[in-house]
């Protein structure tokens, strides 16, 4: 029995067959809404959690009454569902998506929508199905829920800041042994280094600032971590795609910083060196490299920064394959 409904607001012929297959494979049902009125009607008729693709569809926004329609849809959705029962997928930027989502579903979100680039092939079908299946799970932080059930993972636990470089080399070496292309393994290991720097150097500061408790628990961003705050790397590999998670136990992620840093036009505009110690380039560097990124977090509990990419030899094919960024919050 279907336990979610994917409503398609699409303007492209290739969307319907792809998202119908994904919705059904994820155990949901599928409907097409040609305009805001239809979306409202389908929302009212549904008793399932909703997934809406593509919220930013041009024909939806082109309607002269789009703002009123938009808010009416929002009212219909809010009357029917709680925020954690609605997941919006869009090809638009995360910032716009977040604003739209907040207006329609309310600000108390469990989920932020995804920025998904259309690249419809067999791997993206399998992966987006896993992504949708996980959208309404209670805990979106676990890497393996984005993989087929039989998939095993490897975990590396860091207990000292000094382990960072060795861990990055271990990830690269592991990926090469799984037959991944060396260029790809190098790219991914550099992305892991960025996520480790966030987990080791920034997460504690964002959680506690200069709180004196920091010294009491024995956590040091340059020395030993305390027992409750190790940093973990988890890797899972299938023939179709690969995923890695870097997990900290501070749960201090600020989604606005992620979104602000992720998509910036620094390839065409000036980079200003921040006054703080960091470079504010980590997420941007990762997303620009073509890797997909999913940040899942639970306040004061944990943050899992996950990377996904298709398991391909050809870099040209990798660049043309699925690519998304998303930020989800577990309450």
């Amino acid at each position: 029995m279907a336990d979610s409904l994917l409503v398609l607001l699409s303007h492209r012929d290739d969307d319907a067959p792809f998202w119908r297959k994904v919705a059904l494979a994820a155990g949901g049902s599928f409907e097409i809404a040609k305009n805001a009125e239809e979306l409202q009607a389908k929302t009212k008729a549904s008793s399932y959690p909703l997934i809406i693709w593509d919220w930013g569809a041009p024909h939806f926004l082109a309607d002269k009454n789009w703002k009123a329609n938009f808010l009416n849809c929002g009212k219909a959705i809010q009357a029917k569902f709680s925020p954690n029962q609605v997941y919006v997928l869009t090809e638009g930027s995360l910032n716009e998506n977040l604003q739209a989502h907040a207006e329609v579903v309310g600000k108390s979100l469990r989920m932020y929508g995804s920025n998904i680039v259309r690249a419809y092939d067999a791997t993206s079908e399998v992966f987006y199905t896993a992504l949708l299946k996980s959208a309404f799970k209670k805990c979106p932080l676990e890497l393996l829920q984005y993989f087929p059930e039989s998939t095993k993972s490897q975990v590396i636990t860091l207990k000292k800041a000094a382990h960072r470089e060795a861990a990055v080399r271990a990830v690269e070496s592991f990926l090469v042994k799984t037959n991944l292309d060396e260029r790809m393994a190098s790219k991914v290991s550099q992305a892991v280094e960025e996520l480790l720097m966030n987990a080791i150097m920034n997460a504690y500061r964002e959680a506690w600032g200069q709180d004196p408790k920091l010294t009491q628990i024995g956590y040091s961003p340059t020395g030993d971590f305390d027992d409750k705050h190790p940093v973990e790397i988890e890797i899972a590999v299938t023939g179709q795609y690969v995923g890695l998670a870097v997990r900290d136990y501070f749960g201090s992620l600020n989604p606005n910083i992620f979104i602000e840093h992720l998509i910036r036009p620094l390839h065409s505009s000036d980079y200003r060196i921040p006054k703080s110690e960091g470079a504010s380039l980590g997420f941007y560097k990762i997303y620009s490299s073509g890797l997909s990124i999913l940040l899942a977090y639970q306040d004061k509990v944990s943050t899992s920064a996950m990377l996904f990419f298709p398991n391909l030899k050809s870099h040209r094919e990798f660049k043309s394959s699925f690519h998304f960024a998303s930020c989800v919050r577990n309450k």
Partner: protein
Amino acid sequence: MLQIEKNKDKNRMAYVLKGTIDENDDLPKLFGRPMQPVVVDCGSLKSINSLGIRSWINYFNSLPRKDIPLSFVNVPVFLVEQFNMLKDFGCGGTVESLMIPFRCSACGTGFSVVRTVNTIKKGDDISVPPEKCAKSGCSGNAAFDDLIDEFFMFLRR
């Protein structure tokens, strides 16, 4: 950890970079203050993290560009991605040569080949002719293994 070899190259000072660049590398100390044109050989560089990028931009932007022309040679594939990602990564310098990724259609081997910018860019046109596979015993042809518009974006600025 970054290591730098300094060599005099005609009227230029050549800096050969080896290893990795991160927050522990003091670029002003490692490079010093050059007084003549600078050529940076990046061929043996393995990685640069975001804090390394910050140091890189800080250092190379501190050189007086009018008096000290800056060029980069043997730029590896991962560093090309930084030139594309950040408009300011070149700090006003010029990329003279870079490593171009290929993949053999017969055996699947990936490898890179150094090419000067002049050989791949003619006016506004950029093209990468196929190469013979670099793997011994394979006679296959290898094609450019990336997207032209993305990989050479920095050359179109």
